[in-house]
């Protein structure tokens, strides 16, 4: 079921852009595995094809299904008399898995039996969940293309949301302007946090993976400190902020029955923007050149260190925007868990999207659907939402290792890029 949906996300990325994606930036030359880490990363993500993506999703869902089946109480009960009635076991397994994935599918799309409006049209919940995933996924995608691994989306989301929150609940501004100010503040906050990693990478060579991981935790501590002191809601004993002013919130797109908000528009604009930036602008050309081969880019007169700094600023800003859509779209109050699992989901989204802007968009839709459906699965089929994390991570592992899927299904390698094989 979700596999069908995945088909669209697996095949669409290349064709959906405002313009067709520029030629694959994976460099034709230089393939020594010992070369720059980031370069290899870019190539890894680019290699493989849509078929692999679809199969990866199918296999991951199948493994998830096995887990669900074998931990179901009815199945274990039926297994007790397996040899007298083996059919019962398989029927129980089918019931458990179809119930769980059925609930997942209905929760993410359309459920005619739900009593609430939100529940009936889960597709809008999917879009709501997808919104921050699109933006943070883009953040990771953009950095990937320069050969940087931005694991810091979480921290950038938190700091972005904090900046947005300060403007959103401490300052009063006229409608319209207020929301714009919130969005800009969030982008600046995220950009600052991402910029630290970019600056240190460019100036001292500090590895961005380490720095961004550490900055994630620093951001959590920092926001906890702020929420205990200057930003705390005086009427609450918990470390949470006061609610955002109404003027600072994204307008709801479909009325009060659905949570879907105008942040989605920001996200789609960001996809178009990043797509343009990467494929049409001079800066994007530099980024791709640096990502493909930093040494060659330096020889060609590009300022690699400036590239690292600017890309982390933009990447951080995108993640900061994801924080804004969380705070001003759905959460309304700031707490230390504002980023939830989005920071790490962003990495999986970017990998599934093969670090192309529109690929990231559809990957975020898929994972948004998992999140929306996972909630309904937890309620209606008593299957913990953790299974979604399992399926997501398996998808990414399989996609990252095409030879594994190929050998599973005996597919011959379509392209020979000499990278992952």
């Amino acid at each position, binding site marked *: 079921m979700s596999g069908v949906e995945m088909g669209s996300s697996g095949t669409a990325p290349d064709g959906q852009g405002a313009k067709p994606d520029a030629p694959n930036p994976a460099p034709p030359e230089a393939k*020594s595995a010992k070369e720059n*880490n980031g370069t290899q990363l870019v190539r890894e993500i680019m290699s493989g094809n849509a078929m692999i993506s679809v199969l990866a999703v199918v296999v991951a869902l199948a493994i998830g299904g096995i887990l669900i089946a074998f931990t179901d109480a009815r199945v274990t009960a039926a297994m007790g008399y397996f040899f007298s009635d083996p059919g019962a076991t398989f029927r129980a397994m089918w019931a458990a898995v179809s119930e769980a994935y059925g609930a997942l599918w209905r929760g993410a799309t359309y459920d005619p039996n739900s009593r609430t409006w939100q529940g009936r049209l889960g597709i809008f919940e999917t879009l709501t969940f997808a919104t921050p995933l699109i933006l943070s996924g883009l953040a990771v995608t953009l950095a990937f293309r320069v050969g940087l691994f931005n694991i810091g989306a979480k921290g950038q989301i938190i700091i972005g949301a904090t900046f947005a929150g300060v403007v959103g609940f401490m300052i009063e501004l006229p409608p319209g302007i207020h929301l714009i100010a919130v969005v800009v503040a969030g982008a600046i906050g995220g950009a600052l946090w991402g910029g630290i990693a970019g600056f240190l990478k460019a100036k001292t060579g500090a590895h961005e993976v380490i720095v961004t991981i550490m900055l994630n935790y620093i951001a959590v501590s920092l926001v906890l400190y702020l929420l*205990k002191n200057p930003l705390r809601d005086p009427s609450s004993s918990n470390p949470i902020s006061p609610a955002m002013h109404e003027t600072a919130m994204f307008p709801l797109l479909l009325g009060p029955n659905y949570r879907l908000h105008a942040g989605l528009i920001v996200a789609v604009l960001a996809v178009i923007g990043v797509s343009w930036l990467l494929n049409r602008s001079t800066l994007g050309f530099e980024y791709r050149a640096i990502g493909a081969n930093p040494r060659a880019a330096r020889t060609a007169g590009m300022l690699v260190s400036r590239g690292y700094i600017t890309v982390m600023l933009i990447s951080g800003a995108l993640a900061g925007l994801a924080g804004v859509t969380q705070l001003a779209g759905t959460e309304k109050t700031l707490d230390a868990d504002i980023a939830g699992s989005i920071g790490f989901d962003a990495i999986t989204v970017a990998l599934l999207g093969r670090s192309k802007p529109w690929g990231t968009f559809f990957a975020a839709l898929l994972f948004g659907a998992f999140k929306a459906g996972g909630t309904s699965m937890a309620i209606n089929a008593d299957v913990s939402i953790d299974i979604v994390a399992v399926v*997501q*991570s398996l998808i*990414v592992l399989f996609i990252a290792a095409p030879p594994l899927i190929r050998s599973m299904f005996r597919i011959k390698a379509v392209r020979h890029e000499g990278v992952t094989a």
Partner: protein
Amino acid sequence: MSITAKSAPSAHVDAVAIRSWKVPILLGVLALFAVVVFVVLGPTGTATFRISQDNDAWQVPDLVLPSKAMGIIVSVICAALAYLAYSQTRATGKIAKWVLMTFTIVFVVGLMVWMIGGTTSQNITLVGLFTGAMLITTPLVFGSLSGVLSERAGVVNIAIEGQLLAGAFTAALVSSITHNAFAGLFAAAVAGVLVSAMLALFSIKYVVNQIIVGVVLNVLVSGLTGFLFEKIMKTKVDGVTIYNQPAQLPGIPIPLLSEIPIIGPMLFRQSLIGYFMLILVVALWFGLFRTRWGLRVRAVGEHPKAADTVGINVNRTRVMNVLAGGAVAGVGGAYFTLVAVSSFSKDMTGGLGFIALAALIFGRWNPIGAALAALLFGVAGNLQSILSLAGTPIDGQFLAMLPYALTILAVSGFVGKAMAPAADGEPYVKE
């Protein structure tokens, strides 16, 4: 993972000609901080450090220090050392090691006096501080040793968190089922090996980017243990969650040694896992730097091609080391559910795997360094929870940031130079 991209050339350049002003500047800023915070804004009264517990055999009197006077002494020494660092840098471009060491110790003392003097009770039990810290330090040490093992062979291990969590879960489950803590301990090591086997499979066999694999494995283990926790451990039989009642490993105090003030309760009243940790740190240090095996491992991590040329099987060495690392981290994970607390809870490792990564880097990929860094981070973490109850001038959250901030300083060259093995993170493909 080439922590410092320009590291190799700049390391030589630093030694020869170019003076790095980072360290003198950092010391200067810290000295200024000492003057302003410890002296001008410092608390009045005294800070009491209680060394002995009431039931100790040897009683050591409490250490009572006047806060203001200590603040002045500390900031004068810090300022003098910062100036010394400045003049040494100007003269030779190098700073004597003892200057940095003394500065750090004096500054930490000043910090402690200031923090304790600023609490409402103005006293702290050092035994409690250090023994409590072991609850954090022990898993950190195992985690960072797992990192040492795999990164010394050239495989970046971001999956420490996942290995710890898998160990904690499996230990709890198996120990509950078998009512035998040792079975749980063994199962935890196996679970760690399984996680690292996936790391090895994907990063060595399929040459997937090691960082990606690590990140994804963490999510996978978190999801898997969370799912199984809900499905299995929460299942009640006769109103009791029988699958989450792990048998515990008992503490084994060592006679005499356990009576030494502070160190005794900290190191010699531990469980089996704690003693194993002490042995492992030393053994691994010896193994890596004094044996043929260690030389080979380090060769594989630094220059795999050269190692291959002299007949070392690079990828087999890497796989073995990654698997061994997994076993080590799995045992560290078992500490959570067999010693520290008596049941498993979702995501109970709470990011300690990433602090272990920080300890590994801060400890310069050296087992003993990593263990000391883990101790530092453990003490800071425990101090944070003690002080959050005691009401302090500094918010506990800033102490919580300490490991991460120090690590960033270390990788960007402010606190010495953290240099990863040269081939860390780079797959080796025979040409």
